[in-house]
C-alpha cells in the first residue's frame, strides 16, 4: 500500500504537498540560474539538482523553528525549507547588496542567515562540520532542546575536519546530525577513487554513532532517517550519521564540463530516478497531486521565480567602498 508511506511517518497530505513544492521551487530556481548564467547575466551557478529530495526530506524532519543548520553549497532545498526566500537566493546569485547571505560578497551557494539559524558557510569544504558540532555543544551546555544539522558531499567526507568533528561529537554525545549527500562524484572523481569505505555511513562506527545509508531520491526515506536521528539527539543519545545516496544531475558547476569524465548514458540512467519525477508519481498515486494541481503549482512557482529574478536583476550592487566594512565589529 503506497498510500500508507507518508501517513505512517505521520505526515499529512498537506505536508507532503509542501515538501514537493519546496523541492520543485529549488529545482526551478536552479534551472533558472543556469539559464541566467548561460545568457551571461550571472557569473556562476552551482546546483542542487538531483539532491532536492534529500535536502527537503531532511529539513522537514527537523524543527524548522529552532534547529540550526550548516548547509553546504548545493543545499538550496535546505535553506528554502528553513525560510530563505527565492528573492533572497536570486539576490545572492546576482551578487546584490541585499543578499542576506553575504551582501554579494560570497559566491552563490555560500549560505548564511542568522534569523533563520542558517550558519554562514565558506568555500573550503567540511569546515562547517565542526561548527555544527560547536552549536550542538552550546545547545547542550545551555540546556536548550534544539539540534544542529550539517551536510556535505561524499568527497568532502575525506577531509580531516570530518574525522575530528565527528569524533568530538561522539565523545561528547552531542545533538548533531550529519547528512552526507552522496551524489557519486566529487567534481570529476567517482566514489571508488574518493572514499575507501563501501558506504560513507560505515564511517559512523569510528565515532560511536549510528550510521545509515538511505535512498537520497526518496524524500520520505530521508525524512524517516532524520526524524529518528533527531529523536535520538533530543533524547540525549547523541549524534548520527546519515548518507543520502543520489546523483549529481548537472556538471559540478557552471564552470565544469562533465563530458570529459563521465558518459551521457550514465547521466540519463540517473535521470530516471530523479525525485522530482518519482516523488510526483508517488503523489499522483496517493492522490495528492493531480494534473490541475501540478499546473497551478508550477504556475505559482514560475511566478515566484520570475518576480525574484526581476527584483534581483534590478537591485543595486553594494557600493565599492562597502568592501571596507565589517572586517571587525563596528
Amino acid at each position, binding site marked *: 500500500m503506497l498510500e500508507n508511506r507518508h501517513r505512517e511517518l505521520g505526515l499529512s497530505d498537506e505536508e507532503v504537498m509542501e515538501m514537493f513544492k519546496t523541492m520543485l521551487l529549488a529545482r526551478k530556481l536552479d534551472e533558472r540560474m543556469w539559464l541566467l548564467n548561460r545568457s551571461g547575466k550571472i557569473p556562476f551557478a552551482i546546483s542542487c539538482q538531483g539532491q532536492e529530495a534529500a535536502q527537503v526530506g531532511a529539513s522537514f524532519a527537523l524543527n524548522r523553528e529552532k534547529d540550526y543548520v550548516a548547509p553546504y553549497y548545493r543545499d538550496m532545498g535546505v535553506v528554502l525549507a528553513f525560510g530563505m526566500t527565492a528573492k533572497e537566493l536570486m539576490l545572492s546569485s546576482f551578487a546584490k547588496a541585499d543578499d542576506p547571505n553575504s551582501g554579494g560578497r560570497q559566491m552563490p551557494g555560500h549560505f548564511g542567515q542568522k534569523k533563520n539559524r542558517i550558519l554562514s558557510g565558506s568555500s573550503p569544504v567540511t569546515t562547517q562540520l565542526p561548527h555544527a558540532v*560547536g552549536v550542538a555543544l552550546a545547545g547542550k551546555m545551555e540546556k536548550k532542546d534544539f539540534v544542529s544539522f550539517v551536510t556535505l558531499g561524499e568527497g568532502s567526507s575525506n577531509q580531516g575536519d570530518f574525522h575530528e568533528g565527528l*569524533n568530538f561529537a561522539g565523545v561528547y554525545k552531542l545533538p548533531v546530525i550529519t547528512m552526507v549527500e552522496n551524489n557519486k562524484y566529487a567534481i570529476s572523481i567517482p566514489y571508488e577513487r574518493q572514499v575507501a569505505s563501501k558506504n560513507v555511513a560505515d564511517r559512523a562506527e569510528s565515532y560511536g554513532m549510528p550510521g545509515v545509508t538511505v535512498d537520497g531520491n526518496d524524500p520520505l526515506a530521508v525524512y524517516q532517517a532524520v526524524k529518528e536521528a533527531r529523536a535520538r539527539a533530543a533524547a540525549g543519545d547523541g549524534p548520527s550519521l546519515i548518507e543520502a545516496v543520489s546523483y549529481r544531475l548537472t556538471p559540478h558547476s557552471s564552470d565544469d564540463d562533465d563530458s570529459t569524465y563521465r558518459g551521457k548514458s550514465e547521466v540519463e540512467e540517473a535521470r530516471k530516478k530523479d525525485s522530482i519525477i518519482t516523488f510526483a508519481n508517488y503523489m499522483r498515486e496517493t492522490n495528492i497531486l493531480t494534473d490541475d494541481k501540478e499546473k497551478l503549482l508550477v504556475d505559482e512557482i514560475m511566478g515566484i521565480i520570475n518576480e525574484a529574478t526581476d527584483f534581483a536583476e534590478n537591485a543595486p550592487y553594494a557600493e565599492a567602498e562597502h568592501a571596507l566594512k565589517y572586517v571587525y565589529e563596528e
Partner: protein
Amino acid sequence: MPVMTYIQAITTALREEMQRDKKVFILGEDVGKKGGVFRATDGLYEEFGEDRVLDTPLAESAIAGVGIGAAMYGLRPVAEMQFADFIMPAINQIISEAAKMRYRSNNDWSAPITIRAPYGGGVHGALYHSQSVEAIFANQPGLKIVMPSTPYDVKGLLKAAIRDNDPVLFFEHKRAYRLLKGEVPADDYVLPIGKADVKREGEDITVITYGLCVHFALQAAEKLAEDGIDAHILDLRTVYPLDQEAIIEAAKKTGKVLLITEDNKEGSIIGEVAAIIAEHCLFDLDSPIQRLAGPDIPSMPYAPTMEKFFMMNPDKVEKAMRDLAEY
C-alpha cells in the same frame, strides 16, 4: 597591589571572566583535570566543572572549529593550543573561518573566540616547542593577535580578548610564565587591544619590540642609562593589526630605531613595522632601521649550543642598542 607571575595572571584573568560571564568556557587538550601542561588552567576544572573546562580529543582543527561554532551560537570559548607549534592543523579554521566570519556574512554572523597558545623559546623545547608563529597570521584581516609582555598586560589584555566580539589569537611566552613577576591590580580592568604601550620613555634611541624581548630591552636600557644613553621602548602588545600611530610617534621621537623579535628575521612582524616607518617618517630618521632577530633557520635546535645561538637574550639586545646609539 598583588604580585604574581605571568602565568598566574593568565589563570586569574580566565577565572574572573568565567565568574563574570557564564558564557565563557575553556576547551583544549589536558586543560581540565590536569589543569594544562603548563598549569595555566589550574584549579578551573575544580571550580567550574567539566562542562565549562572541556578536555578535548587531540585534534586542533576540531578545537578551533567547535569553538568557532559555539562562538557563532553566542558563547565565549577560550581555546587552548597546547603549544603554538601545534596550531598548524587549525589554521584552516582560523584563517578561512574565524577571520572571515563577520566579513563574509556582511556582519550577520561573528566568531568571538579567543585562542591561547604558549610560544617562544629558551626552554629546551627544540624545533617544535619553541616557535614564534605570529607572522603566519599577521596578514589576515579579521584576526587580532595579542602578545603581552607583563603580568599586568596579560590580565588586562586577556580579559579584553575574551570580551572582544571578534576572534583573537593570544600568544603567551612560555619562558615568561614563571620567570616574570609583576604587580597586578586585584580589580577588574581591561586594556585596549590594538594599542602599543611605551614601556620606557627615552630620547636617544627607539626600541620597538614585544613579548619577552621587551624585558631584555628594558634591562639593556638600564645599562645604557649608566652610560648616558636614554632608550625609548615601545611594546607593540598587539602585533596585528599594528598600532601605526604609536609606531610612527616612537620612531620620530629619537630618529634612531631598533626593531627586535625573537622570531627568525625574514617575513617577521618587524618587517611590517619597518615598512610603516619607511613609509611614514623616513625623513625623520638619522640611521637605517635596524632589525635584531633570530637567524633564518627553522626554529631553535635542542642542543644548548645551538639553542643559545638562536635565542634572543639581554646581551644581544644590549649590543644592538649600543651599536645603534653610536651610529
